[in-house]
């Protein structure tokens, strides 16, 4: 064929057509000219003349281009030549997305696995983030929360005579201080304070139509509602007028309580109820989303601050001379406020600190100026941190766990994408060859992974929604149903998910994109039979991804293992008393008007009645039921005759009833237990445990010695030791080594409030429940039973947080294992497919199937073992962080480490075995034909 094409191409050049189109036109016209040329030769023309006549068909230099211009440029839409540079950025992106969808549709199985994997990873992260958002980040649902401030103090030493009550002493102040802060009207537009009405949850008896029920009550000062900027849904809030002496007693109820107890009766305002026996009028209902000032808690009702019997903060029993309003050294209030317009937090802090300093140093002069506590005005938009303090560490730990899980998911999908990118090398080389720019190609591949992760993110939101609901239900159960959270998906959660999904998309796309765009055109287009001479480093990336996945799963699984062992250790732990067939319930007779001797009489009478019930073996009393959430009192202790008290001389002690040790199954080692004869009229006696005697009487018999609960021995208020018992854990599930003591409750009736009954049944405790209720009801119908349950249930509930944590980390650990194994399986299976040719040659040369099996398994196991090694090293560094959360097991527990490594290796062997078996069955003849 003559050289027609250069002539034609020169004429087509001004049109700037795509290379493909240009080539097509040139070929067709060249064919035409060639035909014409041969025809002219046949008619007898010379070759030279024929050539010139044929070329003349092109009619000059520019006619062809002009005629084609209208057709090719305006009307002609180029076929999608992917990766080709486009002047229109947006059109390019649309084209990329369109193409990405097409690629995903082409391999639905791959897409489904990748999107599901990503959805799991992103969903788990979104769920945990929703919790962090709900508990730690979200502001109170009130007006302008950013202007709220929280009063707080900080100190190494605190005036020793001050006593504190509350969740967090650093947020506690006395009413006197509150009054002085309130006077600072130049910096604060309002200051308000609050304290719980009861000492325990559900510690207020509400009489509705004469029937006693339990509720959570809060006492607030007059500016609580106006300061927070909360407008009640119905009626009004508590105001300054309600605090005036003699004002009619008013109660505001929560939306949830209104729903639960009054079926949202709109005519509830003005109705009467009794609180701890005192008549109140319902004056308001709070809005639906208002939960007070502490996320995770939700009071049922609010009343004005008061100091009357049965109507004092923290169920404080009557006694002492001062009232709550004037007692300078009882820090029982939490204080918040709203800054005055134009005043900064720093300015207000300066003014309030002066007030605080004056108050503290009024009757206390520490030797060092630095011992004086100083005042902090913290941002109050998130309210008082109650739940945050004990949930923050576990939640952040869970966030780390799901972060690892997401990394594994990413590595997994990246491995899949890499494998696919290898099989797409040819496609990409062709695109590069026809003029695609590398940047456009990278963009294209990134679009594909971004689309995949966006789909994963969307599905992840659905998973996260379920996950968050389940988590909140679990957490609420772990807190006896008292933790109320709203962890809905808000804009912050959506933004987080979007960010994570985009990050994942870029991470995923980057490796295959960079690799693919480096493709060597020639070699890639020439062949795909790279099986025999596979350059080692070509799979380095894929292999390191597998190693990373295995390592991350090791970290998660060892973490899970340690928490599971913590849980089993707790469950099998001997707490020092017998939990079998033990029932517990509380009573708060002081709210029904029982005090002093009458109170002790009631308890004695009830004990007699219960002990006489059929099916009851024994019954006794204790101030705080084991694991009820409240620890016993801790107090300084000083022993008579001992010149120097051991350092840290503290003991836990509480009042118990007669027969306490025999009923609970705590062995008495020396002397006697608390008896019925230990009353207010008899000498004060105490029983101590062996930890106490080891510390204070290492060499002598402690019976007959005396001690007092004060930092200096006080003979007037001393107790005589009458017995020694084995140590028992009656406070909470984190056993300490504190000495413990028990006194007869009947010897200090003035300070008695709520007490718990411990009843040992002959058989299953359920059989005596109704008998117990009747016994209490017949004694006094106005006394509600508080928290009736078996002691085993109570202990199990106290463990529910540990159980929840063990369960969650196990789920995450198993998910991680599953993902890593899918990744390993995928990689080995892919390698086997690629190596079919090589395997065929080896077998043709005499390799036995077992050699092949060994070869494939070796690759998988080597990667797994490297991953395990990295994982173990990383875990050794990380378990330190959880050492405070595990119990009875070392953070370097060899059993857990070895077990996890073994499980992982065995599962990895299985994951490799399936493709390895396939490799073993390769038919050399078929394999050698295989390209």
């Amino acid at each position, binding site marked *: 064929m003559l050289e027609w094409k250069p002539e034609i191409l020169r004429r087509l050049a001004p049109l700037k057509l795509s290379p493909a189109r240009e080539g097509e036109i040139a070929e*067709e*016209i060249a064919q*035409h000219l060639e035909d014409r040329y041969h025809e002219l030769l046949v008619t007898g023309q010379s070759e030279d003349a024929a050539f010139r006549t044929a070329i003349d068909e092109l*009619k000059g230099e520019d006619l*062809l281009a002009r005629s*084609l211009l*209208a057709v090719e440029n305006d009307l*002609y839409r180029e076929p999608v030549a992917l990766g080709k540079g486009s002047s229109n950025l947006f059109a390019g992106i649309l084209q990329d997305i369109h193409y990405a969808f097409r690629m995903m549709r082409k391999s639905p199985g791959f897409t489904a696995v990748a999107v599901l994997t990503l959805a799991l990873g992103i969903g788990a992260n979104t769920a945990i983030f929703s919790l962090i958002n709900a508990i730690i980040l979200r502001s109170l649902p009130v007006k302008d929360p950013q202007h709220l401030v929280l009063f707080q103090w900080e100190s190494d030493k605190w005036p020793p005579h001050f006593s504190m009550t509350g969740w967090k002493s650093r947020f506690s102040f006395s009413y006197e201080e509150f009054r002085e802060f309130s006077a600072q009207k130049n910096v604060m537009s309002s200051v308000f304070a609050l304290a719980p009405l009861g000492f325990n949850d559900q510690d207020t008896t509400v009489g509705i139509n004469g029937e006693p029920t339990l509720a959570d009550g809060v006492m607030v000062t007059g500016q609580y509602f106006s300061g927070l900027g909360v407008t009640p849904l119905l009626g009004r809030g508590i105001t300054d007028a309600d605090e005036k002496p003699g004002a009619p007693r008013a109660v505001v109820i929560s939306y949830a309580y209104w729903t639960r107890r009054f079926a949202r009766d709109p005519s509830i305002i003005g109705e009467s109820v009794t609180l701890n026996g005192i008549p109140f009028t319902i004056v308001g209902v709070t809005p639906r989303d208002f939960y007070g000032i502490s996320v995770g808690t939700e009071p049922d009702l609010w009343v004005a601050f008061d100091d009357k019997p049965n109507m004092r903060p923290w169920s404080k029993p009557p006694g002492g001379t001062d009232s709550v309003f004037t007692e300078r050294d009882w820090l029982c209030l939490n204080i918040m406020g709203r800054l005055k317009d134009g005043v900064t937090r720093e300015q207000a802090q300066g003014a309030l600190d002066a007030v605080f300093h004056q108050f503290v140093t009024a009757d206390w002069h520490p030797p060092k100026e630095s011992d004086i506590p100083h005042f902090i005005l913290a941002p109050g938009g998130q309210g008082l941190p109650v739940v945050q303090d004990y949930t923050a560490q576990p939640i952040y730990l869970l966030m780390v766990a799901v972060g690892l899980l997401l990394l594994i998911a990413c590595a997994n999908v990246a491995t899949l994408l890499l494998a696919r990118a290898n099989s797409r090398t040819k496609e990409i080389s062709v695109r590069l060859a026809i003029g695609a720019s590398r940047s456009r190609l990278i963009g294209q591949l990134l679009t594909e992974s971004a689309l995949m992760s966006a789909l994963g993110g969307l599905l992840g939101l659905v998973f996260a929604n379920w996950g968050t609901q389940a988590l909140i239900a679990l957490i609420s159960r772990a807190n006896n149903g008292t933790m109320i959270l709203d962890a809905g998906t808000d804009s912050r959660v959506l933004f987080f998910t979007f960010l994570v999904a985009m990050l994942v998309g870029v991470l995923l796309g980057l490796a295959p994109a960079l690799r693919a765009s480096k493709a060597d055109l020639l070699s890639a287009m020439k062949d795909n039979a790279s099986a025999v001479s596979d350059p080692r480093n070509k799979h380095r990336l894929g292999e390191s991804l597998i190693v990373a996945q295995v390592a991350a799963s090791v970290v998660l699984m060892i973490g899970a293992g340690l928490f599971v062992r913590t849980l089993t250790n707790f469950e099998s732990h001997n707490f020092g008393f017998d939990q079998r067939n033990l029932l517990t319930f509380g009573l708060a007779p002081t709210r029904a008007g029982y005090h002093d001797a009458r109170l002790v009489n009631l308890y004695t009478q009830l004990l007699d009645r219960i002990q006489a019930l059929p099916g009851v073996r024994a019954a006794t009393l204790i101030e705080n039921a084991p694991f009820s959430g409240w620890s016993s009192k801790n107090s300084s202790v000083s022993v008579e005759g001992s010149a120097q008290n051991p350092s840290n001389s503290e003991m836990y002690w509480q009042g118990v009833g007669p027969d306490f040790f025999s009923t609970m199954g705590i062995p008495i080692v020396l002397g006697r237990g608390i008896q019925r004869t230990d009353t207010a009229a008899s000498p004060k006696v105490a029983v101590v445990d062996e930890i106490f005697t080891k510390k204070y009487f290492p060499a002598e018999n402690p019976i007959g010695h005396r001690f007092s609960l004060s930092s200096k021995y006080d003979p007037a208020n001393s107790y005589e030791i009458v017995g020694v018992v084995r140590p028992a854990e009656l406070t909470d599930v984190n056993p300490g080594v504190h000495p413990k003591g028990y006194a007869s409750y009947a010897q200090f009736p003035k300070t008695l409030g709520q007490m718990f009954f411990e009843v040992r049944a002959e058989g299953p405790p359920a059989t005596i429940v109704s008998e117990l209720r009747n016994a209490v009801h017949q004694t006094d119908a106005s006394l509600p039973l508080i928290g009736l349950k078996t002691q085993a249930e109570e202990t199990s509930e106290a463990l529910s947080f540990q159980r929840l944590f063990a369960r969650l980390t196990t789920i995450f650990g198993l998910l991680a294992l599953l993902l890593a194994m899918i990744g390993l399986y995928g990689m080995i299976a892919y390698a086997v497919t690629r190596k079919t040719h090589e395997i065929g040659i080896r077998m043709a040369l005499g390799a036995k199937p077992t050699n092949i099996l060994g070869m494939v398994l070796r690759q998988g196991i080597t990667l797994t073992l490297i991953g395990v090694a990295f994982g173990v090293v990383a875990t050794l560094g990380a378990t330190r962080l959880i050492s405070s959360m595990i119990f009875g097991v070392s953070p370097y527990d060899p059993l857990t480490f070895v077990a996890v490594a073994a499980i992982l290796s065995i599962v990895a062997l299985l994951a490799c075995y399936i493709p390895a078996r396939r490799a073993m069955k390769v038919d050399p003849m078929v394999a050698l034909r295989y390209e």
Partner: protein
Amino acid sequence: MDQTASQVEWKKGSAELLILSLVEARPRHGYEISKLIEQRSGGTVRFHVASLYPLLYRLERRGWLCGRWVEKSGQRRRRYYRLTRQGRKVLASQLRGWHEFVVGINRITEAENA
């Protein structure tokens, strides 16, 4: 309108019709089409390369023709054009139009000359 311009317009209008009718019976390649036009018109109508192929491409873009590379044994591959369903409809209506036009012209000229 000068003579050359009117000739060009006339040719343009009829060229589409000529090409469509030539590929009606069977697919043909570009050179074959140009040869047939030249032969059947006795050499009075001729398309050179620079106008034939742009025209073919335009008809293809409009969806009246469909071009396809065909490889026959022992030959270089050629692009063959066949009439599409839409092209068939267009051809029918153009033929009808031409027919009516010719009949109309004849009537006028016959009446004048009678």
